[in-house]
């Protein structure tokens, strides 16, 4: 499948994300924040980094970039979209996902190999995993604390829209240990940790992240 990876000014992990896409058996297509063009891709990844310098709020300015107009419209029609870290923040600012990401409760940047439990293995991006499977992938954020009001959290839990949860350590104060969520349709997923950094034995914490990049293909041929 052809998976677009968006580069914003200040994006950091687009190269790693594109590499993970290729290792996952897909074609990576570079998308530019300033273009009203998704180049006909089958899915889009919004990678991590500090788009627009995190000015105003993380993701707040990126959300209004030309490419995001297209992403938001296409996501509404079912296009699979995965937002990682800063990409998750952009998806929340775009209101494609509920809640918001604010500064870590302990106020420090955190960088660690993080254990997660996959809570929903039915989304476009997680079908390669087993429900309840535990994985370890790198986590690195300063503003990764997922928050939403109680009603929204209850709804997310009730509808099975918590995609991944932190296990052992809650690294940033996220409510109910939430590391990732999905929209109602399951095509849009936001995740704070970085599966794209865990796709090869040579580097990172292992290859536990690969499933996020093979799920689309597996689903297509299932």
């Amino acid at each position, binding site marked *: 499948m052809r998976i677009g990876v968006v580069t914003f000014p200040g994006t950091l992990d687009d190269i790693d994300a594109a590499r993970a896409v290729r290792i996952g058996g897909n074609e990576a297509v570079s998308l530019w924040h300033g273009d009203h063009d998704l180049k006909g891709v089958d899915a889009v990844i919004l990678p991590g980094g500090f788009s627009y310098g995190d000015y*105003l709020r993380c993701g707040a300015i990126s959300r209004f970039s030309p490419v995001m107009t297209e992403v938001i419209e296409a996501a509404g029609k079912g296009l699979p979209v995965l937002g990682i870290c800063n990409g998750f923040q952009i998806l*929340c600012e775009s209101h494609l996902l509920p809640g918001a990401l*604010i*500064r*870590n409760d302990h106020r420090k940047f955190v960088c660690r190999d993080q254990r997660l439990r996959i809570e929903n293995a039915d989304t476009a991006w997680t079908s390669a995993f087993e429900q309840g499977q535990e994985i370890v992938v790198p986590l690195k954020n300063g503003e990764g604390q997922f928050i939403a009001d109680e009603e929204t959290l209850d709804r997310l839990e009730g509808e099975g829209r918590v995609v991944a949860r932190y296990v052992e350590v809650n690294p940033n104060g996220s409510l109910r240990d939430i590391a990732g969520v999905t929209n109602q349709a399951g095509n849009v997923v936001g995740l704070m940790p970085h599966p794209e950094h865990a796709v090869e034995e040579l580097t990172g914490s292992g290859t536990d992240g690969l499933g996020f990049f093979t799920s689309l293909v597996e689903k297509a041929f299932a």
Partner: protein
Amino acid sequence: MPRVVVDVMPKPEILDPQGKAVLGALPRLGFTGVTDVRQGKRFELEVHEVTDDVLAEVEKMAETFLANTVIENFTVRVEEK
């Protein structure tokens, strides 16, 4: 030129780590008597004139862009000079 000010503050129920950091630093600097700090943002918008339309526009700006109403409240006011 008149000025419209938009103040954006984290909602009371939202943890404000930056405010907490400031609060923690105050006693270290010898400032006592402060029991809580909340940190927000202030936007000063210079406009040609203040009309109901302009204020409605600023309101919309604040709602969609300057504030994230999931986590922040905002107020709009005209600053007299």
